C-alpha cells in the first residue's frame, strides 16, 4: 500500500498542477506511436488506414498544444492562429486521404477479394 | 448558481461547481427523458386523432397520460435479449452511444438567454457535429446484432444521414452568415424584436432554405417519410430489430431527443429562438440580461417560447409521419442530391448576395442590421486596418 501511495503521490501533480504543453506532447506522442505501430503491424488495409489517421491526429494534438495561448509558459511563445489553421488543413487533408485510400482499398478488394495488404505483391519480380 | 452556492450557502468552490454541473446535467437529461415520455404520449394521441381513434384512454390519468409511464415500466421489466451471434460488447454499447450523442448535443443548446449547459463559441457547429455521431450507435447496433435486417437498416441510416449532413450544414450556415456568429445565443439574440426580425422572414432565400432545413432535419433524425432505417414494412424494425427492453428504449429516447433538438435548432436559427413574435418584454421595459428577478421572469418566458416552438416542430413531424407513405432508399438519396443540396447551395448564394445588395432589408428600419463590424476587421488594400471605434457596430457594405 505504501509503495502504491509513494508512487502515486508524484502523479497527484497531474491533477493539481495546470496542464502544460508537455502534457499534450505526451498524448500526441502516444497517439503517434500507436498509429505507427498500427500501420506497421496491421495486415488489414483498413487497419493501416486507421493507423494513418492516428498518426495525423497525434500531429494535430501537437499543433493545437503549441497554438494554445494558455499552455505557454514563460520563455516560450504560442504559435497562435497559425497552429490551429495548420491543424485544420491537416484534418481536411486527412479526410481527403481517407477517401482516396478507401477507393484504392476498394479497388484492391475488387481485384484480389481480400483487404490483406501482404497479398498486394503483384509487382514483385 | 455556483456563485450563489459559494457566496450564500458557503459551499467549497469545488463542491459548488460540481453541484451546479450536476444540476445542469440532470436538467438536460430530464429534458430528454421527460420529453420522450411526453412526446410518446403526444404521438399516440396525435396518431389517434389523425386516425379517427381516441388513442390511449384507459391506462390512467386524464387522457391516458400514464400510458408512457406504463410503457416505461414494461420496458424496464422486459427481458433483455441478445442474439447468439451478436458482438456482445458493441451490441451493449450501441444504444448508449446513440443516447449520449443526442444528450451531448443538448449541452450547447440554449433554452433561453443564459439558460444553456455550456455556451459555446461554435455552438451550431457543435450541435450538428455531435448529432451526426448518433448515427454511429445505429451502425454499431446494426452490425453487432448479427441480423440481416439490422444490417440493412444500419447501412441505410449511414447512407442517408451522411448524405443529408451536407445540405443540412449548408442550411445552417445561412443564419450563421446572417448573424456573423456560430454562437447559438448570439444568433437568437440577433432575431429579437418583432416577427420580421426572424431569419425566416429575412429574405426570400432564407424563407426557402428554412423548408430545405425542415426536410433535411426530418431526414437526418430518421422520421417518416425518411424513416428507412426502421422501415417496419420492409425491414421488420431495422437497426433495432434485435433490441428489447431498456436498451431499445435508449434508442427511442435518442430518437425523440434528436427530434426535439433539430426542432429547437430550427427555432433558434430561423424562428427567432426564444424571442416571441411580439417583443412583449421589451415593450414592457424589461430586459433579459440584467440579472434581477424580472429578467429571470423574461428568461422563463423565453424558455416557454422556445420549448413551445420546438414542441410544435416535433408535433409537425408527427403529423407528417401519420400522413405520408415512406420513400424508397434511392428516392431518399435523390431528394438529397438532386433537390436539397443544389437548392441549399443556391439559396446560400442568394442569401449572401442579398446581404450585399440589401443589407438593411427591403423596408429600412424594420429590422436590426444583420452583420456588425468589430474593431479592426475591415479588409483594406494593405491587409487589415483598424476601424475607427465610432464605426464599430455599424453596418458597412463591403464591396466585393
Amino acid at each position: 500500500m505504501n509503495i502504491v501511495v509513494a508512487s502515486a503521490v508524484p502523479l497527484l501533480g497531474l491533477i493539481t498542477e495546470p496542464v502544460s504543453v508537455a502534457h499534450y506532447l505526451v498524448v500526441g506522442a502516444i497517439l503517434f506511436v500507436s498509429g505507427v505501430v498500427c500501420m506497421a503491424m496491421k495486415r488489414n488495409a483498413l487497419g493501416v488506414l486507421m493507423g494513418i489517421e492516428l498518426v495525423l491526429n497525434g500531429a494535430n494534438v501537437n499543433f493545437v498544444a503549441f497554438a494554445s495561448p494558455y499552455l505557454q509558459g514563460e520563455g516560450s511563445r504560442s504559435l497562435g492562429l497559425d497552429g490551429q489553421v495548420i491543424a485544420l488543413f491537416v484534418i481536411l487533408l486527412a479526410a481527403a486521404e481517407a477517401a482516396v485510400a478507401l477507393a484504392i482499398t476498394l479497388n484492391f478488394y475488387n481485384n484480389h477479394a481480400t483487404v490483406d495488404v501482404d497479398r498486394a505483391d503483384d509487382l514483385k519480380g | 448558481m455556483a456563485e450563489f452556492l459559494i457566496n450564500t450557502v458557503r459551499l467549497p468552490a469545488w463542491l459548488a461547481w460540481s453541484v451546479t454541473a450536476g444540476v445542469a446535467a440532470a436538467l438536460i437529461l430530464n429534458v430528454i427523458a421527460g420529453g420522450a415520455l411526453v412526446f410518446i404520449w403526444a404521438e399516440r394521441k396525435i396518431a389517434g386523432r389523425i386516425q379517427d381513434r381516441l388513442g390511449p384512454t384507459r391506462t390512467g390519468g386524464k387522457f391516458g397520460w400514464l400510458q408512457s409511464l406504463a410503457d416505461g415500466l414494461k420496458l424496464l421489466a422486459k427481458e433483455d435479449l441478445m442474439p447468439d451471434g451478436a458482438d456482445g460488447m458493441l451490441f451493449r454499447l450501441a444504444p448508449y452511444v446513440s443516447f449520449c450523442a443526442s444528450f451531448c448535443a443538448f449541452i450547447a443548446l440554449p433554452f433561453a438567454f443564459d439558460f444553456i449547459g455550456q455556451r459555446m463559441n461554435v455552438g451550431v457547429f457543435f450541435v450538428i457535429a455531435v448529432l451526426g455521431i448518433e448515427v454511429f450507435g445505429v451502425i454499431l447496433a446494426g452490425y453487432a446484432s448479427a441480423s440481416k435486417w439490422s444490417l440493412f437498416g444500419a447501412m441505410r441510416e449511414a447512407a442517408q444521414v451522411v448524405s443529408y449532413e451536407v445540405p443540412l450544414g449548408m442550411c445552417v450556415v445561412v443564419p450563421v452568415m446572417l448573424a456573423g456568429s456560430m454562437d447559438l445565443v448570439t444568433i437568437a439574440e440577433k432575431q429579437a424584436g418583432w416577427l420580421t426580425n426572424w431569419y425566416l422572414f429575412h429574405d426570400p432565400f432564407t424563407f426557402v432554405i428554412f423548408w430545405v432545413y425542415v426536410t433535411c432535419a426530418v431526414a437526418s433524425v430518421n422520421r417518416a417519410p425518411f424513416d428507412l432505417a426502421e422501415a417496419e414494412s420492409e425491414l421488420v424494425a431495422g437497426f433495432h430489430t434485435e433490441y428489447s427492453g431498456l436498451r431499445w428504449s435508449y434508442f427511442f429516447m435518442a430518437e425523440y431527443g434528436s427530434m426535439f433538438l433539430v426542432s429547437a435548432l430550427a427555432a433558434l436559427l430561423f424562428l427567432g429562438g426564444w424571442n416571441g413574435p411580439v417583443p412583449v418584454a421589451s415593450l414592457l421595459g424589461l430586459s433579459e440580461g440584467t440579472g434581477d428577478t424580472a429578467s429571470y421572469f423574461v428568461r422563463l418566458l423565453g424558455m416557454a417560447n422556445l420549448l413551445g416552438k420546438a414542441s410544435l416542430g416535433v408535433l409537425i413531424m408527427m403529423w407528417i409521419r401519420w400522413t405520408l407513405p415512406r420513400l424508397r432508399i434511392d428516392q431518399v438519396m435523390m431528394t438529397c442530391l438532386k433537390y436539397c443540396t443544389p437548392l441549399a447551395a443556391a439559396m446560400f448564394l442568394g442569401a449572401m448576395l442579398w446581404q450585399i445588395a440589401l443589407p438593411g432589408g427591403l423596408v429600412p428600419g424594420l429590422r436590426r442590421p444583420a452583420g456588425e463590424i468589430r474593431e479592426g476587421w475591415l479588409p483594406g488594400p494593405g491587409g487589415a486596418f483598424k476601424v475607427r471605434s465610432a464605426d464599430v457596430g455599424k453596418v458597412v457594405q463591403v464591396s466585393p
Partner: protein
Amino acid sequence: MSALPMIAGALIAAPLPVAAINWHSLFFLLFASVSCGFAVAVVAADNVVRMAFYLVLSLGATAGLFFLAGAEFLGAMQLMIYVGGTLVLLVFGVMLTAQAPLVAIKGSGRDRVLAGIVGVALLALLLQAAFSVKPWRAPAAGVVAEPAATPIGMSLVGVRVDEPAVGAPAANKRPGYMLPFEIVSIHLLVVLVGAAYLARAKRRKVPRAIEVAASVEPPASVAEHASIGRERHRSGSVLAGGRP
C-alpha cells in the same frame, strides 16, 4: 492507463486536498487517458469494426482535448470531419468484411514483437523530446484564450484579425491563408471526383448473372414474352428449396 487506479488509491490513502484539484487538469487527464487508451486499443484489436469503434472514441476524446486547449472550432471540426470520416471507414469495414475471414486478419506474432520494440523505442524518443524543453513544462496561469472561430474564418479569406504572437511580423504583414485555403478546396474537389471515379458504379449492358445464364439455351416459349432476366430464372435457382 495504469495511472488511474494509482490515483484512485492515492485519493483514498492520502489526505488529498480536494480543493487543490485543478479541474482543467482533471478533465485533461480524463480525455487524455480515453484518447491514448483507445489508440492503444486500436492497435491491440483484431476485429476491424471494433478497431473503428475504438478509433472513433480516441478521436472524439482528442476533440475534447482541443476544446480544453481553447480550440473550440477545431474540436467541432474534428468531431464533424474526422469522426464522420471514420464513420464512413466503419461502414466500409462492415461492407467489405461481411465474410468472416476478413473481419480479423491477424498479423504474425513476430511482427507484433518487432512492432512493439520499435514502438516503445520511438515513444521513448518522443517523450524525451517532449520533456527536453523547459518552458514547455511550465504552464501559464490565468490566460484566457480568445474565441478562435472568427479569426480562423477571417484568416482563411486572407485577413488576419488575431493578436500577433510575440515577435511575429506586424499585423498587416502577416500572411493570411487565402491561397492554401483555395488549394485545399480544389484538392478536396479533385479527391472527391477521383474517389468517386475509383469506386464508381458503372452500368453494364447486361447484368452479370444474366450473362452467365445467356450461355444456357432459353426455352423457346421464353423468347415470346421477353421480360427482364427471364432466361436467368430458367437456368436454375440457387435458393433453398428450389423448384423441380
